[in-house]
């Protein structure tokens, strides 16, 4: 080659320049140290990190621990538009393959009118209020997280179960709501207002599930406590 012939005669630095060039052209053998795992997102797939989209980001995965076979679909990772901000540079967009069920429109719960007694734990009332606030902002999942936080702090507080069940019902998770209300019932054998509330909620859940006989059984139970 012409270039190398010329260079054979030229010592030191120019030689290095060629080495540099050859290495630079070598391609895959040399490159950035860390593998870049990001792929560009299609615009339609990009999720907005705020607002009402937050519910769509959440994957409704059942977390039953001991079952080790895959339960939820894998998620695809997409990258955000590149930016030089450190925080943003590492943001990952995780897109669930299956979207959460659209929020079912369940007519206002017939039981929301029932006034439940305030919890004697200040912290519970505070967390329930925060949950309400989040829900009002459309952050339903964050609202559920607050309620579960309240449940951990006061695991036998019926009001927390009442709110969890009502929220699940409003999300169209009628079966989940029914079971939560059934558990709530075990905490309040002597409290008529709660018995009424939970049975009404069970009736509404069963109605949603198409369980006609179950619904009427729940309605007649509720009637005992009105």
């Amino acid at each position, binding site marked *: 080659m012409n270039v190398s012939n010329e260079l054979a005669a030229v010592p030191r*630095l120019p030689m290095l320049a060629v080495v540099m060039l050859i290495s630079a052209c070598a391609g895959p053998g040399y490159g950035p140290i*860390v593998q870049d795992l990001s792929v560009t997102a299609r615009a339609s797939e990009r999720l907005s990190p705020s607002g009402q989209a937050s519910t769509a980001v959440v994957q409704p995965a059942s977390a039953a621990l001991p079952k080790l*076979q895959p339960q939820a679909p*894998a998620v695809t990772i997409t990258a955000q538009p590149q930016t*030089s901000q450190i925080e943003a540079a590492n*943001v990952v967009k995780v897109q669930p393959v299956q979207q959460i069920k659209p929020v079912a429109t369940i007519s206002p719960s017939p039981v929301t009118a029932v006034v439940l007694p305030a919890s004697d734990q200040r912290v519970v009332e505070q967390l329930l209020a925060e949950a309400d606030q989040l829900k009002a902002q459309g952050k339903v999942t964050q609202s559920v997280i607050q309620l579960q*936080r309240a*449940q951990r702090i006061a695991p036998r507080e019926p009001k927390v179960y009442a709110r969890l069940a009502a929220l699940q019902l409003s999300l169209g998770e009628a079966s989940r709501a029914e*079971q939560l209300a*059934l558990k709530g019932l075990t905490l309040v054998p002597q409290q008529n207002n709660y018995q009424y509330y939970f049975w009404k909620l069970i009736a509404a859940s069963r109605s949603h599930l198409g369980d006609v006989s179950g619904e009427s059984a729940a309605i007649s139970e509720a009637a005992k406590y009105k």
Partner: protein
Amino acid sequence: MTRKRAVSGRKTITKSWISWPWLLKLATVLLVLGAVAMVYLDAQIRHRFEGHRWSLPAKVYARPLELFTGQQLAHGQLNYELKQLGYRWVNQVKAPGQVQKTAAGIAIYSRGFRFADGDQSSRLAQVNIINGKVQALRQLNDQPIAVLRLEPQLVGGIYPAHNEDRELIQLDDLPNGFIETLLAVEDRQYYQHYGVSPWGIARAMWANLQAGAIVQGGSTLTQQLVKNFYLTDRQSLWRKLVEAPMALLLNLHYSKDEVLEVYLNEVFVGQAGKRAIHGFGLASRFYFGQPVSELRLHQVALLVGLVKGASYYNPQRHPKRAKLRRNLVLSILAQQGFISESQKQQYQALPLDLSTAQQVSRYPAYLDVVRQQLQQHYPASALSSHGLRIFTSLDPWIQQQSDLAMRGQVKQLQQQHEGLESLQGALVVSQRDSGELLALVGDKDGGYAGHNWALDKTRQVGSLVKPVVHLSALESGRYHLMSAVDDGPIAVPQADGSVWKPQNYDLTSHGVVPMYQALVKSYNQANVRLGIDVGVKRVVAQLQRLGAEGNIPAYPSVLLGAVEMSPLNVNQVYQTIAGNGFYSPLTLVRQVTEANGVLLSHFPYAVRQAASNESVYLLQQEMRKVATAGTARGVYRYLPKQQQVAAKTGTTNDQRDSWFSGFSGQYVATTWLGREDAKPTPLTGASGALKVWGELMKNLAYTPYQDIKPQSVDYYYLNPKTGKAMPSRCADGVWLPIQKQLAPVTTKQCGY
């Protein structure tokens, strides 16, 4: 760069005999080549700098400690948690991360944290605590605080193959004096030079000449970054050559602050086993257990000093060396006028102040399950590289107590008995109603040597199955706790034509006994008879509804626990019993968010009724009696009398397995002990596993056992011999709840 090469070229010429035209041609070729190389390098620089800069391991967090009025803390718990979080005790709290002893308790200045449900701002709270119970929480202005949520402890990461770990920080996160210190030591002209510093090189050369050795490097921070960020660590010709031009390009494209920020996160500052500690953010956590924003100048000086040689000056391994280096850095600061001579002396007199908290990765069994669970939902690459934040329910205090209880009791048992060298153990703790897994011990040492005994290994459960037999009997509607059950010898014909003749542990028959007594004393013959009458299939179905996994063949021997389960799965079954008959899957991951806090996954609380509340209530009362008057009564060697627990012991054939499972007001825990080779041991459930369980429960916060009696049962004072309800003045009666539908005959006389 081009100009530089041209200059060097000219030098070559003077010595060369190559003619001028040749040289011109050569220069042109080189110019072109150089330009191409620059374009290539430029692309490299921009690609890496603006793209996905680092593979960030997922961060795994423990549950945050929440303080609220009425909360009961275990003895020593708050101090332990604060220490693990790197809080500093001071005389007057002024900044986040500080705590102060006060007359009525403590003042905590919490750090803010971004939780999955939103930001928790930093706040200063006065916490009044009497006997471990939080009496009140107030702000400085005396306003009550409903709940103070501390930031969660970082308990581990899910590391990629190359094990680089870092915690990203921004310039704003640095405490005062950090940048000044870094630049004073590493690159004084940083904000003035063009990426390379001829003056710096000259200065270094001069210093080296004077010293007769290499004492200073001429590399700028930009060059150091190029070296670490773009080029392999090998000393190669290529690297030497492109380092300077790349530094110039980097300097050209990006602001000084941007480059510095990347440097702060890239720099290598330590090695912990396979894990490489990169960046000052993680370094601060790693060495001091504190966020970098809270560091004081002597700590800053130590971190900056580490840049020169992280392993040589490793403060954990070579504290003296590290202190000398730190003090040298402080001297440089004084020399350059950043601090006064007296400040220098004050700082130099301070200790290294390394974190005394236990380092991360102390929860191998728990993290192992977290990883397994997450791998169902996320690809491995996402877990090891995208900086996801995993919020778990791990309770660091309970995990610590679990490890200690297991280690201490196993050691003691090994000293007391022969042949227990290969004794293994597992311990599972969950929260009673939420079903969240709080702690997991998968090995007798709390370590992890390949097997997670809580999860991977199944063993026969023995008498732990008996509560399920009783539950099935109660669910049939034909039995109550006083029902007469025959404990006489029994022979059960098997499907293969053979006859099974189970015997009692004491090889004695006890005649006709009330049903509850069969459980309290764990009589095999009575329990088999009860199970046969109810139906083995029904018992198996009930066991599965409670959460037992896998295929369980309905052989009569199941009634005595000839069914293999893992300790985790046993805990699931007892969890359902403790949760008033509502199954909720044991979970450990609460939420997953992106690095910036955007919520990705959340695991909603769900329950499924597995038995009637009435039957479960009755069973719970039986199990309470097992603890007060039966095979589990040994727990009261550990617990105060007023602490109510419900429990059951389990021992398998030839004492191969020692089991204990039960629950208090707040916790469900299961312990298993046995030899690795499954050979017989001298241990029963009561003389082995019970001790670990008792030792653990003793050290957890006491919470009352809230018993809620269903309306369908009433309490009666019963004569255990006749089953009749008698006046409470009579002797030798027993108070038991009985279903209203099966109300006992009442007598006015005693003894009938």
